[in-house]
């Protein structure tokens, strides 16, 4: 509040500078708020996702850990989420998502599409 009063009463460059400082402070606060992450886990077993339906909160950054328990490689892919990442046999990858709007986002395993299908439920 005080800064705003100063910026109103002051003039010229000082005024502009203070406004910028205020703006940057606000933006970094917003960024910090956004950085709060929700961690979710997804496993691949027998070329299927477990769980096949995964619920995560809306408007939050999500850190999705995909653990491939099979010995064979898989590619986690989703055009809804715009993601594409290889996960080797017995490997784990991190897929960063969001913040996402509420809704249903489909994903699949590119190498075993006949079985590896799943949905991310964002609410």
């Amino acid at each position: 509040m005080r800064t705003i009063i100063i910026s109103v009463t002051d003039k010229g460059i000082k005024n502009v500078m203070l406004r910028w400082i205020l703006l940057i402070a606000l933006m970094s606060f917003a960024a910090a708020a956004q950085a709060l992450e929700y961690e979710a886990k997804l496993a691949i077993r027998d070329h299927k996702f477990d769980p096949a339906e995964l619920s995560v909160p809306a408007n939050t950054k999500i850190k999705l850990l995909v653990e491939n328990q099979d010995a064979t490689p898989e590619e986690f892919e989703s055009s809804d989420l715009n993601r594409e990442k290889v996960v080797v046999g017995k490997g784990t990858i991190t897929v960063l998502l969001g913040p996402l709007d509420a809704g249903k986002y489909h994903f699949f395993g590119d190498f075993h599409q006949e079985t590896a299908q799943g949905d991310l439920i964002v609410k």
Partner: protein
Amino acid sequence: MLGTGLLVFREVLEAALIVSIVCAATRGVPHRGRWVSFGIAAGVIGAILVAFFADAISQAVSGIGQELFNATVLLAAVVMIAWHAIWMSSHGRELATQMKSVGGDVQSGKRPLSALLIVVAIAVLREGSEIVLFLYGQAASGAGPLAIAGGIGIGIVCGVLVGFLLYFGLLGIPMRYFFSATNWLMLLLAAGLASQAAGFLIQADVLPAFGNRVWDSSALLSNGSLVGKTLHTLIGYDAQPAGMQLLFYAVTAVAIAVGMKVWGGVKTSPSRVARPHAHAS
């Protein structure tokens, strides 16, 4: 076998389309077959290496190594295409004239063919590494060698066939417009690759998305469909693009177009007539 063939086909198709455009763009250049073959060979070797080190790449740079690797090779391809397209726009007209008069015997001069070799290699490397990983998985989960070999055969033959169709279709373009047509195709190709690179940088959380999906045309034409995939490779079609991807697409397209105009004297530029062409012989 068919399932294996289908996946191999989808990956081969993407690389084959890019190789076809490169082949069309290098029409009439002596020994270009050798350049393209070197590119493919380098891509295959690279694909095997990348697949072999997939886990190490994945774990690198605290888990975003795969994204950074993909974005880097894609952007490298963008730079190479831009370089070649701009070079061609300043020399393409003479090339077309020479081809008509001397019957295909064109002096390639200092044409940056190595740039296109890298583009071919990168296209093959990216799609090829997925094929190698997939086939390794198939083999590890007990698919017979016959099924795997058959799948590879079907996939490669079909993918290469589509590539040839595109190539011979492009050859149908009249010589007058040929090199400016292939140049614009290269421009769109580069813009699409830049958009893909932006996608990986967003995925790595290095860049903000500027809107996760600016539009959704997946009901009309999905990314997974054959046409969607083809257009994805050729002009960078994306059913659900992020804002940053569109920005990368536009900036790349405009930058190359401006480059072609400034250094190339493409059409419409009134100063073209006055500019002496050093190579016109």
